[in-house]
């Protein structure tokens, strides 16, 4: 890649993102040099795809939560870009234990300390977690 081929395609995925990355490219003298890049269309497409997928899954989960099929746990799990395995690691629990808490009935019976732990992991207050509809 030559210096004049370094892509400058802004990401426009999340607000306030102006980071220019450094890339290595070949100059007119044949020597490698560092050039700043605002982004590349191909990479942006892959990034946008990843975020669109997250947003779509989150919307599906939110709808199920509103319909009373799921507790707020899977909603906040996905909002924090976690999967079951990762959330279980953060909670220090087995995956099947966390999965049980996905059920609204089981969620209602959770102790204050478990709810507090979830709230910490999700970086929200316990009230935000229990009042989520």
């Amino acid at each position, binding site marked *: 890649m030559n210096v004049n081929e370094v892509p400058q395609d802004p990401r426009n995925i999340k*607000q306030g993102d102006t*980071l220019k990355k450094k890339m290595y490219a070949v100059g007119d003298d044949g020597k490698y040099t560092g050039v700043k890049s605002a982004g590349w269309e191909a*990479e942006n497409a892959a*990034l946008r795809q990843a975020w669109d997928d997250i947003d779509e899954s989150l919307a599906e989960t939110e709808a199920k939560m509103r319909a009373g099929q799921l507790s707020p746990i899977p909603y906040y799990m996905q909002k924090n870009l976690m999967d079951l395995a990762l959330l279980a690691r953060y909670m220090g629990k087995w995956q099947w234990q966390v999965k049980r808490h996905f059920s609204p009935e089981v969620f209602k019976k959770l102790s204050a300390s478990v709810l507090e732990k979830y709230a910490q992991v999700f970086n929200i207050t316990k009230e935000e977690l229990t009042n989520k509809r």
Partner: protein
Amino acid sequence: MSEEKFIHCQHAHCESGVTANLLRHEGIDISEPMAFGIGAGLFFGHIPFLKINGTPGTTYRIWPGAIFKRVAQRLQIKIQAEKFRAPENAMHALDDVLATGKPVGMLGSVFYLPYLPEAFRFHFNAHNLVAYGKENAEYLISDPIMEEVTRIMPEDLVKSRFAKGAPEPKGYMYYVKSTSKDMDMAKAISQGIKQTCFFMLSPPLPWFGNKAIFLLADQIKSYPKKFPARKAALYVGNVIRMQEEIGTGGAGFRYLYAAFLQEAGQLLKRDDLAEFSTELTKIGDNWRNFAYYASRIVKARTTDLVSYEELSELLKICGQQERELFVKMKKMKW
């Protein structure tokens, strides 16, 4: 030396960038490509059954922590590197070293680094950054992928250093203890190149080195038959992200390594290294071509068999060309 102000330089890749910045602080004039090459940072790996954030794991670089350690070892630099069980101990240890005026390298998760653009903040736990001081409650941070220095609150830093998942940084931190006067750059370069050739050509397992490129090519070909359109496209998208996202310098580190070969060629006055650099630059262009073609599949969200087959073929070209290059490099006389 260590009392001097820390000078932040932006780099393409986090670990080789941190290594270069830390060593330059000690008065060793080393570029990022040089650190990457001596530390044998280039690699390829694809492990279909190891899912990271739900997609098969693909890497274009060696495992975290290896570059700094190898560079230090090859340049006779004494370092201290440690992991911690308790976050409090890890933060105390960091404060203690910072109090002596030494900048400290750390491993962390990008998800918990608020200064990074949100678009990049996934649960990626192998990011490297430097703390070079503390002011009021905040840590002064030099993150090599950022244009300027930044700051972070201790509660965010501790979350990042103790992120869970794969791999877990466990508060890993490292710093230079002392440097040596008798550094042998030529020897360090040859050791780095030999190791990269070994890691690319010799692993007997299909998931590592050059072989894994062909494994990924076969996998990609099978995606549209095995998965629904959305999942197949997500898997392809993840390969692009690993190749092009923050800290790869473009083309999955191939340009960064080509820059190293060029610099090494100049330093050692060897034309063969310069030729290998030119060759790898062209291979890097092919990797970018592959990513560009892959992004069209991502945008189209189709399971059109032909496009996946073509994509697979483009990847095989990269794999074949790289194989030939490393076979030649392995035969170099030192």
